[in-house]
């Protein structure tokens, strides 16, 4: 419960204006009617990458709660990981003219032109978790470069020879062509460049697939008996890496640093030692950011895209030691939380 409060608090401080309004709903204080009317009976569409993983589910849950509260209609167009389908859905949406679109970009370009067109057509657009080259009303989400920096720093701190490590680390990438992979990697490379004592023995990609990650990692681990750390770019894929470490009977010996949205299994993995370090970008908090951004964007009378702003998610490094009971959230927490 503390986690939720903390997340909510964070969101509140970030979106100060919205917080004030939320407190004053009984009477006309000069803003409240505008606040409620700007969202009442509006059409908001959420276009995720796919609905089948934790992040969009949390965001959608948050938006749904808000929609129920404020009386807008939320619909979800699920392209199920296909950017072609997503682009088509977006095209269709432009002719359908909803009031606001919340778009989760698969990469930095594919929706860019369409988003610009949507804004031109008078639709407000919020992008989430990966910003495309087109700038729209709001961006809510992670700065992937920061994530990379944090992960690299964690790994260096654990594995540098002065800290008693062998200095050898390996990296497990997702799809190298994927922009968040690319941005995170460039951050990691930038940080590592300043630390010549760290040797990267392997930097393979596993296509976000735990099975591939497992086979790559098991080979790498056998090849490098003195491997100290493994940086993985997504917790789900890194389940494969941790399985390989477990098989090699090197839990604790090889330290795994990964990132993710901070759902409960991540904390479990930290607890049982599968993960050593975890950079959480707290999807729960993102949901709050997102709902606030929706309220804010909808209240603005400016034309779409006229005053863009960003809400970069504060990220948090978790380890077994720094982790607390409320460091991770569950879907239950989200369902119970107010938005």
């Amino acid at each position: 419960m503390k986690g939720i409060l903390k997340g909510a608090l964070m969101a509140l401080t970030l979106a100060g204006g919205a917080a004030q309004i939320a407190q004053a709903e009984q009477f006309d204080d000069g803003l409240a009617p505008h606040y409620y009317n700007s969202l009442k009976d509006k059409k908001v569409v959420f276009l995720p990458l796919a609905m089948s993983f934790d992040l969009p589910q949390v965001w959608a849950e948050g938006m749904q709660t808000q929609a129920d509260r404020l009386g807008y209609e939320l619909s979800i167009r699920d392209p199920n990981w296909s950017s072609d389908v997503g682009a088509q859905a977006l095209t269709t949406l432009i002719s359908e003219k909803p009031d606001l679109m919340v778009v989760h970009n698969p990469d930095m370009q594919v929706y860019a032109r369409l988003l610009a067109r949507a804004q031109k057509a008078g639709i407000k657009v919020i992008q989430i978790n990966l910003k495309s080259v087109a700038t729209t009303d709001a961006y809510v989400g992670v700065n992937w470069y920061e994530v990379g920096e944090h992960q690299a720093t964690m790994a260096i701190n654990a594995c540098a020879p002065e800290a008693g490590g062998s200095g050898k680390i390996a990296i497990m990438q997702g799809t190298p062509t994927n922009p968040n992979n690319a941005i995170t990697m460039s951050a990691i490379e930038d940080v590592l460049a300043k630390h010549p004592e760290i040797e990267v023995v392997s930097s393979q990609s596993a296509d976000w697939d735990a099975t591939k990650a497992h086979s790559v990692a098991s080979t790498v681990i056998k090849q490098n008996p003195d491997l100290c750390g493994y940086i993985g770019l997504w917790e789900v894929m890194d389940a494969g890496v941790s399985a390989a470490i477990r098989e090699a009977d090197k839990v604790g010996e090889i330290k795994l640093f990964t990132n993710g949205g901070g759902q409960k299994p991540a904390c479990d993995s930290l607890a049982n030692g599968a993960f050593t370090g975890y950079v959480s970008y707290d999807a729960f908090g993102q949901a709050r950011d997102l709902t606030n951004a929706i309220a804010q964007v909808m209240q603005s009378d400016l034309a779409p895209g006229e005053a863009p702003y960003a809400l970069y998610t504060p990220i948090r490094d978790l380890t077994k030691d720094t982790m607390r009971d409320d460091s991770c959230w569950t879907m239950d927490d989200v369902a119970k939380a107010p938005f």
Partner: protein
Amino acid sequence: MSVSDTYAKWRYRSVPDHLLGEVLSKNWIDNAIPFAFLLIVVALFGSLIPGFLSPAGFSDLARQLGEVALISIGLGLVMLAGGIDLSVGSTFAMANFVSLALINSLGWPVWAVVPAVLCVGALIGLMNGILIGYLRLRAFLTTLATLIIVRAMVDLLILSYAREVAMSMTMSEAWFYLGEGFILGIPVNFLLLVAVAILVHLVLSRMRFGWHILAVGGSRRSAYNAGISVRRTVCATYVISGVMAAMAGIFYAARLGSVGPDTGIGLEVTVLTACVLGGISLGGGRGSVFKAFIGTVIVLMVTNSLIRLNMPSGSTPLVLGMLLLLAVAVDIRWVKNRHKLLSRVYVSPTYFDLPEDPSANVDATSSYALNDKFRDVTAIGLGDLDGPEDMIFDSNDNLYTGGRQGDIMRFFAPDYTRSEVFVHLGGFPLGLAMDKDDNLHACVAGMGLYMVTPEREIKCLSDETNRSLFSIIDDSRIRMADDLDIAADGRVYFSEATIRYGVSDWAVDALEARGNGRILAYDPKDGSTRTVLSGRVFPNGICMVDDGESLLFAETWACRISRFWFAGPRKGQVEPVIEDIPGYPDNINRASDGTYWVALAGMRSPAFDLSLKMPGFRKRMAQRVAMDEWLYPNLNTGCVLKMTLDGTVTESLWDLSGEAHPQITSIREHKGALYLGGINNNRIGRYELPEADQTWTSQNEYWGRT
């Protein structure tokens, strides 16, 4: 008339049963199943989604179609030639990347980018084509390998250059126009798609290369034996598929401008699904552009609509998969049963009520009274002839007749014992006529109207008439030219007995008793042929009336003779002359006393007459009973009638024993003798007419010679 009769009459007049068989015999009917699926999909989603059928919705779909359907057509061609191309998705991605790299990073102009990218697509296609066409590798595995390889190359390129490509943006108007432009409110690429589709359709249906593709897909060995370069053809289909995928990639690049890593992933499955849903068979030979197009429309509609309906993500694959299974299952049944169904429904009898048979209760004084006048008929060319349906004389009294083998025989006057093959026409010459210059005109079954000059020069006068607008059967061809006569102005009027059956199965037409036949006119002035009268029941004999503006024609299964005015004030009218002939009239010819001879090929039987009123019975018979046990009109024993222009039958001549001249399909009076022909005979009969004018010949009288 009983109630059931009235019902049958009403039922068979109002429902055109025969159209079903005709439609089924058309090749385009193969498109019916996918088209029905499309209609169902449109109806379903149209009712579920408001604005589904709006112009904006159409325009969105059209834009996307302009990409995916291009690939479907390409893959469709490959499948038609018996292959498969799994690498289209990777080629698409490669084209997308290359276009963006060229236009964004290298700043090439659009006119240079497009051909360059098409070349890239063609190259990938060529690689597939060489491996599969020339090295004869298996298509599935080879394109699977190229799928992996090209995809890996795209990924490597993206890895190295994505940032560069993504950072610079072209401002080329032409480029944006490709991706977002409209012509008359229609997306540019959709117009291009339509053009490509029409082009490919024409190539497939009419051009050499298209036929080669169909042949290679239909049977590789046959194509090879026919002298077609199988390897080149197979290779070319892959090149085309590569080019199409590249073209789609260009449009995609112009529309979205993204070098995303998942571009085109799984596209091959989408496109394959589209092709199969459309009904293009894996393994080759069956399919069309239309099918590829329809299949793509269905797939895209389903995918887009399910998303618009806020359906959870599992529903799209679920529905598409089920649809694919259903389509293939239906298609398999269809292919299996279309032929069977066609053979069951093609013969489509209709209701026909023949007037009462006047010979049923005749006495000795009736003009139909039986006699045995033909007992002493003498035979000409006995054993040499095979099916002399008609015969004619030239001005030197030589006799000409046709035969089953396609020869025209000439018997020399005066005793007609000497003969020669005058010409070999082929086909089965049925009706014969002589113009005033002794040019022999012949109606040849299966071939049309021919003329043979006295110098034995053969000329095809007519093998094609005007196509009528609403006929499903292509009625421009002439299948069963039967009998003819030449009008005074030189025009040749000839009958085509039926447009639904050919030389080998014309008798089946009798079961239908529908007006399947017509009368055509050939005009020697401009060489054209027109249909002048259609919808007649097996029109057979044709004979000019002396007034120069009408002719008599016999409708065999309808047992009637009518008069048709082709000129003059009554032009176009038809008037029955006799409607209750006791047999099946065949040829009609002039007699020396100004009356007309009519040959009856057979006599009516009560059983068959009754069956004409029971179309359902005849239909069941055609469906269930072996063909040689069907009830046919009796065409064995007939007679010759003499009738006047007002329809009075004055005389009948019979061969009671059936020995001298068993079957009569034609008669010709010439210099005091009556010559008898029969389509199943092996001779021509000659019957002396002692009281007739011994110098009269039909030709002389008609052409005004003395």
